[in-house]
């Protein structure tokens, strides 16, 4: 007997689903409509902008970058004068932002970790003081804190001619905090190179020490050797160069102090405000990270006779860091973005310089686009780093 032909013929299937109920086709339809809407709105805005720009005879394009800036910038890391181009002025702004961000991140990590650990201390007083600091700093807007510190720095300190002089070569006045620094000397470059060499050598030493420990079980105090070398070898170099002690002393000439290293009230207020504000958040992150490690880990580490320093270094830190690093990175990014508030207290960061450029050239779109591009660059590079780090450190699960 021939088997029953039970196959369903093609036409009975394909007649079934109408167009608007077919999920696949509907998805395509929705996407087409969405793209249409977005491009329609963009086109509308774009054509309006073009019409308005033409009507108001505002220039477009980035040609203004080559023109003379004709404004001074209060502080810059590179040589700059009003005769330089807008491009150079903006570059000065970028360097100022990076300077604040870099120093701010280092200080915040240190201060935040310290406060986070203090919050977990068994000392009731320390723990409460740390908790109070965290609560107060987190709940007051950063801009208000910046204004507060800026007002303190220029209202409560005396004029340069009556500057506070706690020790020789150090002056505090309402123009900033001025310190005497060593006079530039070739010994310093040599010291810098030696320091870098010690760090690199120390890293290799550490690796070699681990390998030796794997093979023979004997621990090698690579960290202590590196720290000692980093302290003593540069000093040795300094002595070899004849121990130069010449200092670049600041002196009051005319209106302001010349020479030495000056931290302006704007820079100091910005740095202090950002560091205090962000370290409160970092403290909470560090606390959460340390608390995420179960007590059993610490007990087990002690049970195999690890010293407290080793417990910290080998057991607590690696696990805590896995929890801490991602939110820590986003706080660092927040600090960089918050540094844009410098425009409100007169520090010449990138947003402030771009703002002046916009005012002078009238080219608002290019200016704001540049601001967004620069900060997007910071954010995206940090995100890429964080993604790499997460993959690198992720727990390999079953």
């Amino acid at each position, binding site marked *: 007997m021939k088997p029953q032909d039970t196959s369903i013929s093609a036409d009975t299937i394909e007649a079934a689903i109408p167009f608007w109920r077919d999920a696949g086709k509907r998805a395509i339809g929705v996407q087409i409509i969405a793209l249409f809407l977005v491009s329609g709105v963009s086109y509308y805005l774009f054509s309006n902008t073009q019409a308005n720009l033409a009507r108001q005879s505002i220039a477009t394009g980035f040609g203004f970058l080559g023109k003379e800036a004709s*404004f001074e910038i209060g502080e810059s890391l590179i040589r700059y004068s009003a005769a330089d181009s807008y491009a150079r002025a903006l570059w000065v702004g970028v360097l100022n932002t990076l300077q604040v961000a870099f120093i701010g991140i280092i200080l915040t990590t240190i201060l935040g970790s310290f406060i986070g650990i203090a919050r977990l201390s068994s000392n009731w007083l320390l723990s409460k003081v740390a908790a109070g600091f965290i609560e107060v700093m987190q709940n007051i807007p950063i801009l208000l804190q910046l204004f507060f510190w800026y007002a303190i720095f220029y209202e409560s300190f005396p004029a340069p001619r009556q500057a506070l002089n706690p020790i020789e070569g150090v002056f505090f006045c309402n123009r900033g905090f001025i310190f005497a620094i060593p006079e530039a000397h070739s010994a310093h470059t040599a010291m810098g190179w030696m320091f870098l060499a010690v760090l690199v050598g120390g890293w290799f030493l550490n690796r070699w020490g681990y390998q030796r420990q794997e093979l023979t079980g004997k621990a090698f105090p690579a960290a202590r050797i590196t720290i000692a070398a980093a302290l003593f070898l540069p000093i040795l170099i300094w002595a070899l160069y004849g121990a130069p002690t010449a200092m670049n002393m600041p002196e009051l000439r005319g209106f302001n102090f010349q020479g030495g290293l000056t931290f302006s009230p704007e820079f100091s207020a910005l740095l202090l405000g950002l560091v205090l504000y962000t370290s409160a958040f970092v403290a909470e992150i560090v606390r959460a990270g340390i608390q995420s490690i179960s007590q059993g880990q610490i007990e087990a580490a002690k049970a195999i006779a690890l010293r407290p320093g080793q417990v910290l270094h080998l057991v607590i830190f690696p696990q805590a860091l896995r929890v801490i690093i991602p939110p820590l990175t986003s706080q660092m990014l927040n600090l960089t973005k918050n540094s844009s508030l410098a425009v409100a207290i007169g520090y010449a960061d990138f947003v402030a310089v771009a703002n002046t450029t916009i005012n002078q050239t009238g080219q608002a779109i290019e200016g704001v686009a540049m601001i967004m591009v620069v900060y997007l660059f910071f954010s995206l590079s940090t995100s890429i780093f964080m993604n790499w780090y997460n993959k690198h450190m992720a727990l390999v699960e079953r």
Partner: protein
Amino acid sequence: MKLTKILVLVLGLCLTLGTFAYAGKDLDTVRAKGYIQAGVNGSVFGFGMPDAKGNWAGLDVDTARAIAVAIFGDASKVKFTPLSAQQRFTALQSGEIDVLTRNATQTLSRETQLGLNFVSVNYYDGQGFLISKKLGVKSAKELDGATICVLPGTTTEQNAADYFRTNNMSWKPVVIESTAELAKTFFAGRCDVLTSDASQLAATRAIAADPKGYIILPEIISKEPLAPAVRHGDDQFRDIVDFTVLAMINAEELGITSKNVDKMLKSKSPVIQRFLGVSPGNGKSLGLDEKWAYNIIKQIGNYGEVFERNVGVNTSLGLERGLNALWTNGGLMYSPPFK
């Protein structure tokens, strides 16, 4: 469903995007609104600042009121928008205000690149330096190495940079966007010198705690002709604003004040008759009531009265007429004939 939500969202966003005040020509818009929207400074005493009760007063404020009188016959038909240096031109360009009476300097680039028309100058000014007497500085040439408070993005900043470069001196800027904040920072001692238009320096000094402790250095380093501005495109509106300013100057030339303008209506001089609208013609050609000039002088006053009332020697600014005197008195105020 999702599509509807998207559509509703977009529609909602469009609806929130503003008051669709479709404007035709500027004068028609103003007439339709029933009042004129004037952009003023908001923080410069004597030019455009609200007093303790919130009533606006100042030279630029009176100019704006005069424009309202010219168009509507009523000085109260004007609303004031305080604007910062950053916002002033974009506000005019975008239509947020109708006229900018905000001590703005007329320059070539502003006329050509920003799409604005400056009318006749209502105050000839120049940039100067304000410094505390305690520093013992008598001339701007001694300012090498000084810290100077300046508003960012203004001609003031550029002029200062040019001046110091020309004279081979160095300086450190302290830039803060708000005029009031800048003055506060200067008086707290953060910077040695405050630089701005000399009239603004006088205004800032006038409301300081210790006005006598500060001097304006003798060097005036730039020309700052301050004039009201309107947008490109409506010539009739521009003429009205222009001749409002000139009417006040012309009245002072003719000796007409707010006190004697009623008597002057009976004057036999054909010049005065044409000016005050007794002989018709001027009003019609401008599209205004024939008594427009009479109303301005009666309700606001002539240029000299406005000057003396707001910034003159008897006010806390204590400014002399100087360049702002009539041309017959050695100044630059000169009106074309009103015929």
